[in-house]
Every structure is written in structure tokens, then in C-alpha cells.
């Protein structure tokens, strides 16, 4: 290990004992660089996740108040936001360098009832509201029970959604809030509107959720996401400067020319000023608290730190930052503020290492910031990011597994085309190794111009087994961006400046209208609908009319396409309808200030103020499972006639003579319990049929057909601004609940078993021809047509040992990218460790794994996802 790039303080696990019986540890394990950050991390691990009603309470009190309740959007919202921000309790914990948090609690979220109250109410009261669309998804969701989760009521603390704790004294407040927003929330108004103006499509839409063909609509969970921020204005103007800017734009307006458009702009600028006032007050309140703490604190060292914090906060509450620490603090404030005004996942700082580099460089050159201090600050930042929690019903948490998907991109190119790597980005990577927390996740934008040294450092981070950085392909991304936004004027420089948003989505840098997406659509469930002539076999709900003929493979494929078109179109169109309520009630005003060109144009995001307004359709999940299932049907039923359609359906209904995974609580392909043998032969046939991930053109072609057809369908659907939707494929962790909602399927998958994750990962245990065959399958279509594609690989730590092992992993990544792959990420772990951690979670509090686009603590992940990760094929050195 002597030729490592890492500094001495990182610990290495030794491979001295070559006993194969021992669980292989990851090659590197970092430790926080200072006592302070060690202590902060310990605090974080000890904290239980909590729900805080302060923000929605103040927001609601103002929103319903007599003076403002008649005001138009977005002014009414702005005033409510200002009131909320201004009245929050400030909490600073000892030892913190970066301060301010979403709630009073270290790991806390607010129940954002103004967005949707039903699933929060279901979660809190533990009764299911009949109108709660998330309920069907909730019912199939199984969550992790350890770590920071509060899965059950304990003492004076009530469990909400099996994850959050809320004090029993706060519960009546939550009830009051839910009662107020019942019928008024964005969710309620969206669905009521849909019911009234969508016609018969409304019923189809509802059936899609009831059958779990798709997960609950985002307007009921989290509508916003997958976006990167532009910190230019806060950093270059400061909060006061931004207010002054808005005032100057208002002052420019000619009173004689106030038409409706000009009025809307005027209202918008006023709204922004209100929000900015709220932010200013919020920061100043924190500054006061820091002052107060400084006065009562006995320890001189801590006292001085509080005083420094107070000074910094007072300054940045109005002005532009004077140094790196203040810039980081200001960025954090804004990032947090977006999280507080919206229910948003995938809010990403983007190319933070580029944004903050000028401050960093200046401080370093002037000797005002040493490397250790910078590292310490970045470690503090990691704790802060990981504290962010998002509250929605249980369905949301099954999808997100507790992660907020805040993604920092490193590498890539500068606008002028040279490599963008720099010392700050290296430190960002290093802090990810020393302070291994789930958030922020890191992505390397791979470009051949990056230096080998930089990339190998990123590989060493991969070897810590945290699952980051993921690797994405700059060339593929730029192709996508110019294709998606070129007609809206995106330049080459802008394309080069892009950043990863959310899990791994390709997003213009801080200049795009964003949506999370409507939800997650299960292609495996679609296969079930085709098999059962339009009826969902689990709920017996008829979703679509029966097909007119189903005699040949071509018929089957036609029905698949037809069902896909109908459901996907309606479902995505409904997103636009729902967005009317978003625009009316819950526009992102802080977010608009951080998106080019809203402030300049005088329009918020929902009014089209962003430079780029094209977005994407809802992602499809389980394309791999669907391809495998269709391959089975095509081969066994229609080509070889080895089984008839009816025999197949009978076997599926009987779960091939096995107990359901939901009953046995075993969600992986292995460990299934047999009850009878009558279907053994059929199961074997289905399991032996061609599977994606083995470089088999039979099934790979079917996969290609599916995803290309999906693309053609969504390209024909308009988004909120009339742009064609782009295709998106990812699962987050929805492949758990979506799998639980499926019976046994023709690919030989059993009922309730978790589906394949991501988009081109093989179904666990079915990629039998090695990693190159898997990659070849993944490359069977054009990745640059998609907002993202996603591939997870599990590799045993010994397979990539040493510097040579690192170089070879890099070669693998480069080869995949050179051949057109967009994304790849790794779990470097011995499966036996995961199994042990499942049995003994108390020993593995710090174990991180990569799920699908995000990293999470093993103990906080639900068993269905845990089982799926364990089952994934692990590539290790030959015996």
C-alpha cells in the first residue's frame, strides 16, 4: 500500500490472513480527520429522525390570515414563506463549524402539509385515509428498522411512517394542520382538478396507482427534484444585493406600461423580496443564538467559535462572502432553504468544486486556509447534508430509502473545454473517504481529459465501499443536453458546465425547470396486464380493455406496446395537470432565485422563468425484468410451444408452488420456500430462458425494443411547457415495493421478490457470464437518448486490490464509457458481510452500501432492498 495516493491518517485493512473463511473487508476505511468531526459524526449516528411542525405551522398561520389570503400567486406563498423562515427556532450544537438546519432537530424534516397532508396523516394516525393514493404503495412498502429510524411508538414519541418520531404534544398541532390543509393542499386540489377536467382518463389514472402499475403520484409525495442550483446571485450579490436587484427591476418598470405581463413580473419581484427578507431574518436569528450561546458558554475555545459563527452569520445574512468558509456557509444556507420551502429530492449542488474554487484558491494562496482546515469544513458539510430528511408517507420512504439525493459532481470540463479537476474537488473526494456518510453523494463526470491521478483518487474512494463516486460519461451527457436543449439555445459552454442532479440525471447547470417525475412505472406489472388481458392479477382491477387478439408473439408485443402507450400517456399527462396546483400553491421561490434566468426574466420556474424548460417523463422501472419475461413468453409459449399461455398463467398464479416472498419475508431470488413440486419443470424452464446481462442477443434485442418504444411514446407527450418529454430509467429503491406488488412472472421471478434495480443492471443472480457480458448487454442501445441509464455492479474487494487493481477498475470504467455507456457505480463488498449485517445490525451501524444511485446506511434500508443487494452477482477473483 506504500504507493497509495492517500495521506497517512487513513487506515488500511490488511490482507495478511488469506483465510477464505474470513469476510473480506474493504481495502480502505477512512476516519474523520479531527476529533471535532469524529464527535459530530457520533452525534449524527446517535440521533433519531424527528418530525418538526414549526415550519408548516408558521406557514399555515400566515397563509390563512385575513390580510393575505386573498392575494394572488406567488405573493401569498412568499409571505407565508417569509413568516415561516422568520419565526423558526434556531438551534446550534456544540462543535459545529457550519451551522443552521432544517428543523430544531439534528436529523429532522417538516411534514409539508401544504403539499400533501393525506399520507402524512395516514402515517401519523396509522389509519389509512381512503383517499390516500399513497396507501396502496405504502401497503407494499417495507422499511428498515434500525439506525436513525423510529419504527414504533416509544414513550412520549409517536412513530410516523415507521421512520420519524414526533412528540405526542406536537401531534395535536399536526392534526390541526392536516385538518386545515384537507382539501386545500396541492395534492388535494390537484386530484380534485384532475377528477373534474380529465374525463375518463382520471379513472385510468387512479387504477394505475391502485394496481401499483406505478407508484403514487408525486404531487402526493414529492413533486420537485432532479435539479442543480446556480449560486451565482447569492455569491455575487448577497441576500441584500438580490433584494436591491429586484427593487431596481421594479423601479425600471414604467407605470404607464403595466400590462398583465408586467404586473406578473412586478408581483414576482415583490414575492422574491419577501422571501429574501425571510431568509435574512432567519439567518440573523441564528446569529443571535450563536451570540447567546457565546455569552453563556464557559469553555473559551467553544465560546470563541460561537462568536465566530455569529460574526459569519451576521455578515452573510446580507453581504457577499469574504472567504471560503463564508461562501460554504452561504451555499449551505441556500441549499437548506430550498429543502425547506419544497418537498424535493435530488436537489443537487452540482459542480460545487467549481463554484467555490475561487474562494478556496484565494484563501489557500494567501495562507488563510490550510488543507486540514478545508478538509474539516468539508467533513462538517457532509454531516450537514446527511442530516437532511424528507417527510412523506411510507410509500415515499420505500422509494427513497431515506436519501435526499444531493449530488456533487466532480471532474468534467470547464466551459473552455479543459479538465475541470482542481484541489478543492480532490478534497471533496477525500472528505467523502474520511467522513463516509450517505450524503452528499459524489459523481465523477468522466472525460478522457481528466488526469489519471485524479481518477485514481476517485477509484480509491470507490474502494472504501461507500458506493460513491458513481461515474458518468461526459460525452454521452453533452450529446443528450444539446439534443434536448439545443433548440432552446444551449451553447457548447453551457453543455460543458452541466452537473449531475439527483441520483445521476443529466441536468443543465442551475438553469432548468425541474420536476421529480410523476412516480415510478413498473414494466413488469405491465407484462402482467398483458398476460391477464388488461386485468391486474393481484387486485383483480381491470385497468384496460381486453385485447382483440393474442395468438402470436407479434400480437403479444402489439398489446404490450398498446397498453404501454395508453397508460404512460395518461399518467404523464396527469403530471402536467397536477402541476397547475403546484404552480398555484407551492411554487419554488427560493429555487427560482437559484435558477437562471428567473430573477432576470421576472418569472418563477412554474411561469417559465428558467432558461431551459424541457423535462422528462416518469421513469420506467424493471425494463430488464420485462425483457426477461417477454423473452420467456416469446420462446417458451410462442416459438417452442413448450408451455401454453394458460399453463403459464396457472403456474404464475400458483407462484410456481412456492410461498410468497411477502409471507416468508425473503425478498431475493434465493431462499424461497417450496410448497409443492408440480411446477418445478416450468419454473426451471422460465428461469433458464434467456436473461438480460449475458450478452445474449435474443433477450437484449427485446430489451432494446422495449426501451426504444418507451422513448418514442414519451417523445410524443408534452411537458408543462409544451416540450417533448425525454425518457428516463431508474428505480431509486422503488424496485422493492413494485416487486412486492407483482405475482410470479414469466422470467421465473417469484411473487413479491424485488425487481432488478437501476435500469441496465441484471436481475440479481441472472448475469452468469461475467462482467463484460453484463456490460455488453447494457450497451445494446443508445444511452445518449436518455436523461440517464444506470448500472450497478458488485465487486469483491480482493478483485481490485492494490494500485494495479485500481487502475484496472478505471480501465473497466473507461471501456464502458468509450463504448457509449452513460453510468456505472460499484458496491465493493463481500456479500457475506452484508448477510452478517442483516443478522447483526448492531455491529454494523456505519456500513454503507450503494442502492441505486444513492448510498445509504445498511441498517436503515428495508429488508426487500437488502435481500436484493445481497443477491446481486458478485464478481471476484478466480480461485
Amino acid at each position, binding site marked *: 500500500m506504500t504507493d497509495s495516493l492517500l495521506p497517512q491518517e487513513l487506515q488500511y485493512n490488511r490482507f495478511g490472513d488469506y483465510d477464505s473463511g474470513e469476510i473480506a473487508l474493504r481495502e480502505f476505511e477512512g476516519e474523520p480527520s479531527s476529533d471535532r468531526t469524529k464527535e459530530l459524526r457520533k452525534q449524527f449516528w446517535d440521533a*433519531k429522525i424527528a418530525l418538526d411542525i414549526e415550519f408548516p405551522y408558521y406557514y399555515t398561520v400566515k397563509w390563512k390570515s385575513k390580510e393575505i389570503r386573498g392575494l394572488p400567486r406567488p405573493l401569498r406563498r412568499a409571505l407565508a414563506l417569509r413568516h415561516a423562515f422568520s419565526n423558526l427556532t434556531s438551534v446550534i450544537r456544540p462543535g459545529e463549524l457550519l451551522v443552521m438546519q432544517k428543523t430544531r432537530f439534528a436529523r429532522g424534516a417538516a411534514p409539508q402539509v401544504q403539499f400533501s397532508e393525506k399520507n402524512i396523516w395516514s402515517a401519523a394516525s396509522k389509519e389509512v385515509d381512503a383517499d390516500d393514493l399513497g396507501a396502496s404503495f405504502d401497503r407494499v412498502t417495507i422499511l428498515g428498522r434500525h439506525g436513525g429510524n423510529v419504527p414504533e411508538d416509544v414513550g412520549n414519541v409517536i412513530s410516523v411512517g415507521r421512520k420519524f418520531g414526533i412528540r405526542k*404534544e406536537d401531534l395535536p398541532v399536526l392534526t390541526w394542520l392536516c385538518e386545515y390543509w384537507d382539501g386545500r393542499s396541492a395534492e388535494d386540489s390537484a386530484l380534485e382538478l384532475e377528477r373534474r377536467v380529465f374525463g375518463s382518463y382520471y379513472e385510468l389514472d387512479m387504477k394505475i396507482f391502485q394496481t401499483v402499475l406505478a407508484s403514487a403520484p408525486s404531487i402526493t409525495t414529492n413533486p420537485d427534484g432532479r435539479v442543480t442550483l446556480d449560486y451565482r446571485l447569492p455569491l455575487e450579490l448577497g441576500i441584500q444585493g438580490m433584494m436591491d436587484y429586484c427593487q431596481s427591476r421594479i423601479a425600471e418598470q414604467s407605470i404607464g406600461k403595466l400590462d398583465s405581463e408586467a404586473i406578473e413580473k412586478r408581483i414576482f419581484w415583490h414575492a422574491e423580496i419577501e422571501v429574501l427578507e425571510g431568509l435574512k431574518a432567519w439567518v440573523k436569528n441564528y446569529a443571535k443564538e450563536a451570540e447567546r*450561546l457565546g455569552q453563556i*458558554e464557559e469553555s473559551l475555545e467553544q465560546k470563541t467559535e460561537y462568536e465566530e459563527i455569529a460574526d459569519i452569520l451576521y455578515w452573510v445574512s446580507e453581504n457577499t462572502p469574504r472567504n471560503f468558509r463564508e461562501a460554504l456557509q452561504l451555499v449551505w444556507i441556500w441549499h437548506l432553504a430550498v429543502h425547506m420551502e419544497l418537498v424535493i429530492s435530488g436537489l443537487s449542488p452540482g459542480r460545487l468544486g467549481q463554484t467555490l474554487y475561487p474562494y478556496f484558491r484565494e484563501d489557500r494562496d494567501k495562507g488563510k486556509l490550510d488543507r486540514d482546515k478545508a478538509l474539516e469544513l468539508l467533513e462538517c458539510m457532509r454531516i450537514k447534508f446527511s442530516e437532511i430528511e424528507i417527510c412523506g408517507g411510507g410509500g415515499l420512504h420505500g422509494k427513497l430509502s431515506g436519501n435526499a439525493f444531493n449530488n456533487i459532481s466532480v471532474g468534467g470540463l470547464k466551459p473552455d473545454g479543459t479538465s475541470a479537476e482542481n484541489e478543492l474537488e480532490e478534497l471533496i473526494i477525500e472528505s467523502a473517504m474520511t467522513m463516509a456518510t450517505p450524503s452528499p453523494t459524489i459523481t465523477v463526470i468522466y472525460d478522457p481529459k481528466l488526469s489519471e491521478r485524479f481518477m485514481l483518487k476517485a477509484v480509491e474512494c470507490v474502494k472504501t465501499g461507500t458506493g460513491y463516486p458513481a461515474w458518468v460519461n461526459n460525452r454521452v451527457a453533452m450529446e443528450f443536453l444539446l439534443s434536448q436543449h439545443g433548440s432552446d439555445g444551449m451553447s457548447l459552454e453551457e453543455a460543458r458546465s452541466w452537473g449531475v442532479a439527483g441520483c445521476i440525471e443529466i441536468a443543465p447547470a442551475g438553469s432548468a425547470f425541474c420536476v421529480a417525475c410523476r412516480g415510478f412505472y413498473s414494466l413488469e406489472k405491465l407484462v402482467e396486464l398483458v398476460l391477464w388481458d388488461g386485468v391486474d392479477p393481484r387486485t383483480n382491477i381491470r385497468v384496460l380493455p381486453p385485447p382483440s387478439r393474442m395468438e402470436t408473439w407479434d400480437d403479444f408485443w402489439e398489446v404490450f406496446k398498446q397498453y404501454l402507450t395508453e397508460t404512460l400517456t395518461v399518467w404523464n399527462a396527469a403530471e402536467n395537470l397536477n402541476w397547475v396546483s403546484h404552480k398555484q400553491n407551492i411554487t419554488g421561490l427560493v429555487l427560482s432565485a437559484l435558477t437562471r434566468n428567473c430573477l432576470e426574466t421576472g418569472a418563477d420556474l412554474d411561469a417559465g422563468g428558467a432558461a431551459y424548460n424541457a423535462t422528462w417523463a416518469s421513469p420506467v422501472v424493471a425494463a430488464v425484468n420485462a425483457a426477461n419475461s417477454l423473452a420467456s413468453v416469446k420462446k417458451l409459449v410462442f416459438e417452442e410451444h413448450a408451455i401454453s399461455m394458460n399453463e403459464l398463467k396457472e403456474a404464475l398464479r400458483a407462484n410456481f408452488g412456492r410461498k410468497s416472498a411477502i409471507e416468508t419475508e425473503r425478498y431475493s431470488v434465493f431462499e424461497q420456500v417450496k410448497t409443492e413440486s408440480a411446477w418445478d419443470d416450468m419454473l426451471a424452464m422460465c428461469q433458464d430462458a434467456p436473461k438480460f446481462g449475458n450478452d445474449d442477443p435474443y433477450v437484449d434485442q427485446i430489451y432494446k425494443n422495449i426501451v426504444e418504444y418507451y422513448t418514442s411514446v414519451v417523445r410524443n407527450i408534452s411537458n408543462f411547457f409544451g416540450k417533448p418529454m425525454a425518457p428516463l430509467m431508474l428505480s431509486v429503491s422503488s424496485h422493492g415495493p413494485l416487486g412486492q406488488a407483482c405475482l410470479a412472472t414469466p422470467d421465473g421471478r417469484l411473487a413479491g421478490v424485488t425487481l432488478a434495480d437501476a435500469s441496465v443492471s441484471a436481475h440479481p443472480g441472472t448475469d452468469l457470464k461475467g462482467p463484460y457480458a453484463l456490460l455488453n448487454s447494457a450497451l445494446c442501445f443508445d444511452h445518449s437518448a436518455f436523461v440517464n441509464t444506470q448500472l450497478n455492479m458488485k465487486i469483491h474487494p480482493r478483485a481490485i486490490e492494490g494500485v494495479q487493481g485500481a487502475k484496472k477498475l478505471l480501465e473497466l470504467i473507461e471501456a464502458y464509457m468509450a463504448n457509449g455507456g452513460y453510468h456505472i457505480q460499484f458496491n465493493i463488498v463481500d456479500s457475506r458481510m452484508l448477510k452478517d449485517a442483516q443478522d447483526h445490525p448492531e455491529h454494523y451501524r456505519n456500513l454503507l452500501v450503494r442502492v441505486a444511485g444513492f448510498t445509504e446506511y445498511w441498517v436503515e434500508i428495508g429488508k426487500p432492498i437488502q435481500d436484493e443487494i445481497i443477491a446481486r452477482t458478485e464478481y471476484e477473483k478466480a480461485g
Partner: protein
Amino acid sequence: MAVTTHRVCGDCQSYTPVDCFKGYCHENGGNEVVFLDAGACDSFQAAGKCKYCAHYQEVKPFMGHCDFVGDHVFSEKLAWTCSGFRQA
């Protein structure tokens, strides 16, 4: 009328929350971890919460009305930014 309750650490001025179970006590300028529901010590000083304020009137458990703001409040609400707080 203010609601009188059993004195716990979580109601004390010196308390800073960490989560729903515990927090820090700044009594004597220190930073000790204490449980929210733990019985308070002799240094207890009521935090500025609506339930301790003279303007507060309970309407139902944990919820009430405030004479000063003239609106709905809740008993655990911190009068952090309220200029009208007056110890009952």
C-alpha cells in the same frame, strides 16, 4: 392561564434539542446530553414557551389561543421571536 406541567429538562431554558428523546443542557455553560423527559434539576428555568406565558389560554390539550398575537398557538410553541412573552 399558563399550563403548569411536571418539570422536565425539555422545558428548560438551558435545553437545546437533538431529537425527540434527548438534547444538550447548557447549564453552567456546559454541554451535557440529557433526556427531554428527564425530571429537571434545581437550576430549572422555564423556557419561553407559550404554555408558560401569561397571554396563553388553553383551548384543548396542547393547543390554545394567545391574547397578544390574537390568534391560534400551541402550548409547546417557543416564543423565540415573540416580543409579547410574559412569564405567567
